[in-house]
């Protein structure tokens, strides 16, 4: 048993943290939030050069085939920023989906370009009848000669505005498994994308108006493909969790720091038990998010049983925990916390925006219920470890 990072991971962690402190300090991130694309293309390029965008991609496709835990080290640091941009959408989620569903020519064509940062991918699943997962996909595709035609709207698509390609889920028939994925060039005629106004970070509306997609880019479309897609989600979700853990850690650090500086009624506010209580609850949410996430990473990296239990648990806990962490931080900070330039509200906004990404807590808790309510520990555990449920 060893719950620490390896020495290499420690080095990776401090490297990433140094890079972010230099390239993307909090003040710069506050400014980025005002821009049209919402992220720094310059930082993106440098991150690609270092190799972050290829970590989820095997070496033969131009990546480094890192472990999920390595990947999580990077994303936790990005979340600490919180560095904005389509890093997760392209370098993790889309990479995993392409790996799971693409055929050899597709992988060879797109994965190296994702790894190099040259092509940005995002995943378009959800629609105006909002529900996470393929059950919510109602947009039909029409086959015509050597191409597919799609018309309709995808909604709440993270990072679509900055993407070159959208992996777009479509319904190919009426059976539950009749789901396919098209790679749509965002510059194709009939595609229009705009950011949706509000408390969102990067959610977009994507409209397809008779968009023609060449016939060789349909991924999946079978039960086996859906299981591959689920595998891609299984590997991506803990990385999103790590990003939120990083965010919650930042919010915790800000709160502890502020408790040591701010004086009211002649005392450091951290001496008031009400304030202490907020930070205690905050660190409990932070550590809950952290250790459920780490256990999920370990289970996948080490091919342990019950991976899905840990992934659903981590996602439910981190999504809720990130929101609660920001709420408690706001109670600690009072007025200062809602001043835009201070930076706390970046995390507040993110915690809300990412709440529904890859499924909200209710979704994951119901999946968890299906897995654990009838769980028989003797079937999954090897009988010798203490982590059976």
């Amino acid at each position, binding site marked *: 048993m060893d719950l620490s990072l390896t020495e290499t991971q420690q080095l990776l962690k401090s490297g990433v943290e140094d890079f972010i402190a230099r390239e993307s300090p909090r003040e710069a991130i506050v400014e980025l939030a005002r821009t049209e694309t919402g992220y720094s293309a310059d930082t993106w390029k440098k991150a690609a050069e270092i190799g972050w965008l290829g970590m989820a991609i095997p070496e033969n496709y131009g990546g480094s085939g890192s472990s999920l835990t390595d990947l999580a080290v990077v994303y936790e640091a990005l979340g600490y920023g919180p560095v904005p941009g389509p890093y997760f959408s392209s370098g993790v989620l889309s990479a995993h989906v392409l790996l799971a569903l693409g055929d050899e020519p597709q992988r060879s064509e797109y994965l190296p370009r994702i790894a190099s940062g040259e092509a940005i991918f995002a995943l378009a699943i959800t629609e*105006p009848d909002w529900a996470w997962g393929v059950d919510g996909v109602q947009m039909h595709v029409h086959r015509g000669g050597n191409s597919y035609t799609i018309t309709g709207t995808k909604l709440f698509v993270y990072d679509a505005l900055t993407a070159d390609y959208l992996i777009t889920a479509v319904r190919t028939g009426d059976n539950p498994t009749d789901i396919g994925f098209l790679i749509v060039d965002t510059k194709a005629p009939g595609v229009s994308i705009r950011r949706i106004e509000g408390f969102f970070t990067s959610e977009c509306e994507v409209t397809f108006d008779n968009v023609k997609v060449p016939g060789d880019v349909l991924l999946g479309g079978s039960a086996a493909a859906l299981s591959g897609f689920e595998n891609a989600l299984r590997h991506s979700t803990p990385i999103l969790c790590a990003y939120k853990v990083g965010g919650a850690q930042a919010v915790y650090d800000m709160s502890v720091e502020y408790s040591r500086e701010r004086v009211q009624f002649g005392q450091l506010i951290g001496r008031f038990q009400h304030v202490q209580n907020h930070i205690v609850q905050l660190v409990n949410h932070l550590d809950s998010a952290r250790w459920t996430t780490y256990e999920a990473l370990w289970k996948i990296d080490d091919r342990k049983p019950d991976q899905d239990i840990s992934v659903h648990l981590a996602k439910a806990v981190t999504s809720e925990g990130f929101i609660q962490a920001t709420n408690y931080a706001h109670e600690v900070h*009072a007025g200062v916390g809602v001043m835009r330039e201070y930076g706390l509200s970046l995390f507040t906004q993110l915690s809300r925006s990412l709440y529904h990404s890859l499924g909200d807590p209710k979704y994951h808790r119901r999946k968890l219920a299906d897995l654990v309510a009838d769980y028989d520990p003797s079937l999954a555990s090897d009988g010798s470890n203490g982590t059976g449920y």
Partner: protein
Amino acid sequence: MDFEPAYTPDQEAFRKEVRSWLAEHVPVVEGNPDSDENYPKYREFGRQLGGRGWLRPTAPVEYGGGGLTVDNAIVIGEEIDVYDLGLPPYYDTGGTLGGASILVWGTDEQKLRMLPPIFKGEVVTWQLLTGPEAGSDLAGTQTEAVQDGDDYVINGQKIYVGGSHGADYLWTITRTDPKGKRHENLSWFLIPADSLGITINPMELMGDGGEGVGRSYKNTIFFDDVRVPASNLVGGVNNGWKVATTHLELEHGSGGRIGRNRWFDRARQRAMGLKKAGHPILEDSDVRDRLVDVFVSTEIARLFDLRNFWMNRSHIEMTYEGPQASYFRKMAHLATAQSIMELVGPYALTNDTRWDTSGRQLDAFMKSSIVDLHPGATADIQKVIMARRIGIGRQVKEKAGKTVE
């Protein structure tokens, strides 16, 4: 017990009068009521209300109010509530709270001079309660006023002030005796907003738009050698803390209100328009559970306000009830925002013209439920005040501030 106001035939007749007058005068606007286009319409409507004495119905006529009974005031409140508006129908809490303070603590001369413009809706007034060094700790303000002949000279800075459409008057608490004892070294001033030396800069808060400053915002106000006539000092020199207890008490919720449960309505209305995988989400038992969460906590908030309204109007001695209502509402709104986010999904987070049908209410609520944790004393401070008033760990209970003359 009777949870409803009772109305005489006269009051019902008055209701008809109010209702038909409002039908003619309430402005019809589209989009954000606080926009540069819409705000002036509400401002003008406020002047019209003020002209009839309906802006501050129970205030004495000689001070610009309506001189009406509480029951008639309730009638006006209920009728304007139908339009989802309050009195005044725009941001003027400085007038509401400052007016109450002047009414309790001002001299006759001050009341006759200061109140009519406020109560008739001729001016907009902002309160300045928070300094960069003193947030919750109002009595620790660093803003100073020094007497110089017939004037006081004010220096300092206040933050989180006002809104996006300017003010005519400001009021604040200043330190007038730097060596005096805590709570006995402060004075309360009404200050013309166009006085020389006042600088008003917008502040960017969470959720204000991406480019520049968005919808409605707060301000930072700097005082550099601002001269204010000594006759604008209300309540006596170094007696400012007592004056403050009046508006603090009201701000802490002791005034109560007869309200509807708007957030439940809004959440339900938004949910009615939505489907999930083809089915109306309102049929989903999870969605209904969250809707009940919203209903339960906002109903309790309504009942606390109603109880406070009754206690305040019946002159029953209040203790912890004001800050309780305030604390409960703050926390209930924070939880309700999350319930709404869970029940309508990402639609709670947008004010997009195409995808929002709540008139920007839900998206604004996601932010305001957080921002509102702090003004009018933080949730923590409300608990501290409750504890003192209940007498937790002390035999002598702290008394509530004076809210009526």
